[in-house]
């Protein structure tokens, strides 16, 4: 789906300028929904309620159960035992939970921040139509196509002892930096962030490219006429115009950071000794390795609240600015 959007980007670009004068939207698009409100066709109702019913069974009900399980001790075999907020109380004194929380914060800042900066930078670099620009865009987007598990396998080969990373470092005379990248608690987390970024930057770039295409070229023309420099055009035209895309990117980044699991699990399993543990991997290992499903559910609730807090916080601010 997203792959087609790259190809379609150049085509939509020339058409844009002809419409640029149309500030006031044509009337028909505004009138139509209002008249439809009165009689809602059963087809539309079906489209709403059938997915809702399916969601209710597959998503909402298990989610509610998760909240309930968070208040219990459950080994998956016998009946769950209600313990109130005991699990959350245990979390406070759990050093592994604290490491996981800290790592998730590092992950959010590094993975989130760098993929926004990198993706935005790449989008700026590659937004102009030049010969062969499609190749660069496609190249940056390719990692998104790979499954994260495949990405992890490839990077594990890079990182393995005497692998590509080690031989490159030795080749340039930095052999003393060589270490067991994924087995050293000081480097494991960062060694996993790198491939995650490698993939995410391409994705964010595409989102920003789409956003940049939607910016009215007349604004740039006006800014240029007013003598704005390239930096000023970026700062005062591009960035404010991308507000809509930013909220999408932020949601994507926060959700992707908090649910990052596959790449960490397939590269380090949260090890060595929990040093690259994220909340998500810790949740999985407490649930399915230590079979403490109640405690794991409590961690899941924390993850949910974190995601909600970050995203709601941003959305509320964004809405407030708009009104």
């Amino acid at each position, binding site marked *: 789906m997203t792959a087609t959007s790259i190809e379609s980007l150049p085509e939509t670009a020339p058409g844009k300028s002809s419409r640029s004068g149309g500030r006031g939207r044509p009337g028909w698009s505004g009138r139509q929904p209002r008249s439809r409100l009165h009689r809602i066709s059963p087809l539309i109702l079906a489209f709403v309620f059938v997915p809702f019913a399916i969601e209710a069974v597959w998503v909402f009900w298990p989610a509610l159960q998760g909240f309930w399980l968070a208040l219990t001790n459950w080994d998956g075999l016998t009946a769950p035992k209600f313990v109130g907020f005991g699990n959350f109380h245990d979390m406070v004194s759990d050093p592994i939970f604290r490491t996981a929380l800290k790592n998730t914060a590092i992950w959010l800042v590094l993975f989130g921040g760098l993929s926004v900066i990198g993706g935005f930078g790449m989008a700026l670099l590659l937004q102009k139509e030049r010969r062969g620009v499609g190749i660069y865009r496609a190249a940056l987007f390719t990692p998104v196509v790979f499954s994260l598990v495949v990405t992890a396998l490839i990077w594990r080969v890079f990182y393995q002892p005497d692998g590509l990373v080690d031989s490159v470092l030795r080749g340039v005379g930095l052999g003393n930096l060589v270490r067991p*990248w994924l087995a050293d608690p000081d480097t494991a987390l960062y060694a996993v962030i790198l491939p995650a970024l490698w993939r995410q930057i391409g994705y964010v770039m595409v989102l920003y490219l789409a956003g940049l295409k939607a910016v009215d070229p007349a604004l740039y023309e006006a800014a240029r006429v007013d003598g704005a420099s390239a930096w000023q055009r970026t700062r005062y035209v591009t960035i404010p115009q991308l507000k809509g895309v930013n909220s999408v990117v932020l949601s994507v980044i926060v959700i992707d950071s908090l649910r990052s699991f596959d790449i960490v699990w397939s590269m380090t399993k949260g090890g060595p*000794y929990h040093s690259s543990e994220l909340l998500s991997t810790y949740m999985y290992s407490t649930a399915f390795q230590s079979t403490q499903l109640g405690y794991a559910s409590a961690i899941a609730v924390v993850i949910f609240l974190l995601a909600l807090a970050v995203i709601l916080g941003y959305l509320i601010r964004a809405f407030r600015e708009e009104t």
Partner: protein
Amino acid sequence: MAGLAADRRTFLKGLGMLGAAALVPGCATSTTNSNSSGSSGSASGELSLQSNLSAEQAKAAMEKLVEAYGKTGGKVKLNTVAAEIFRTQLPTYLTSANPPDVYTWYAGSVANSYAKKDLLLDVSSVWDGMQNYPESMQKLSTGENGQKIFVPTNYYWWGMFYRKSNFAKWGVTPPKTWAEFLAVCKTIQSKGVPPIGIGLGDTPWVASAWFDYLNIRINGAPFHRQLLAGEGRFDDPKVKAVFTKWKEALPYFDPKGKSFPFQEATSALLGGKTGMFLIGTFFADSAPKDALDDIDFFQFPIIDPSVPVAEEAPTDGFFASKKAKDPEAVKKFLAWVATAEAQEIYVKNSSGTVIPANPDGKAADTPLVRKGKAMVQDAKELTQFFNRDSSDALQPTADAALTKFLDKPDQIDQILKDWQAAAEKVFKA
């Protein structure tokens, strides 16, 4: 490559299984409902056998075993699942409304924990025909309430494996005591080879073998079992003594071993990149057969001669779900796998480094296996392995503590304190 594809397939199967379990409404929290909602019960009278023997040779041997059983008139459908997925999914299998009938699993407390939850089929009647099995096996297969819940089919041993040609080249002979062992390490290191191989990336549980062996050599098997059953403390000075001893050998460990799994550590040993490797005979499943001729092992060195010699001899076999659709057919199958001939079929078709549990069963007639069998038979005490003597839930606490110790041996007091705290949480749950 083929292994990868197979792994993915089995993973997907496991995922499907998980999805199916989630479909049964309310099944996530209610475990009391049984056959009420039989959705896809196989009415063909075919037993479903869930196997975790996913290594190539072991898997092939299981297929041969099922085929042979088919010739006796029984019908069994084999479903091989990657070992790691099997382990995490086993509780889900057993508590689902429509579980597979028979499972490969390990003897000891790791099986008894399911018996305690009343999830396993009572197979005492199968044991009526297994009178020739030694008492140790009987004890190992008995659940809390005195019922037999497990049918052992084979066991293997752990040892310090090495290449005969390399030991000859380096001019060292297999050591018997700890002091001799350290001397051998020193010699091998002087030849520019890391003496002790290990594989902790992805398979950190391999480190538990060192803990187990040092503990049963220094403190003895009874202390070890009590500790693992939650009756001791990991911050006990006696446990610290284990690590003090271990520290003496730490400089000889292969630093690269932290990065790769035991399969690669096996390759390193076979390729002469490490000197020796404390591992169970299952490593042979992923080793080329011709390399095995050059492989030998020695018993883990004796540290305190006054401690009765114990060896790790993990026992594998089968247990069955209490909800098995046709318990009589299950028992018939289990009675058959307990026979010497069935176990010989498995031994012959696998890498041949396991020993039939049936005393009449013939193990592969190689010097290696003969030596292994003799070592286990001479042992005064037998232990299973860390997770088998405790639980799969305790294993991750050991993994964290032991890998951290290998990395930061100076923080031993803190590590043991953390380990005790983590273990208490597991025992409390």
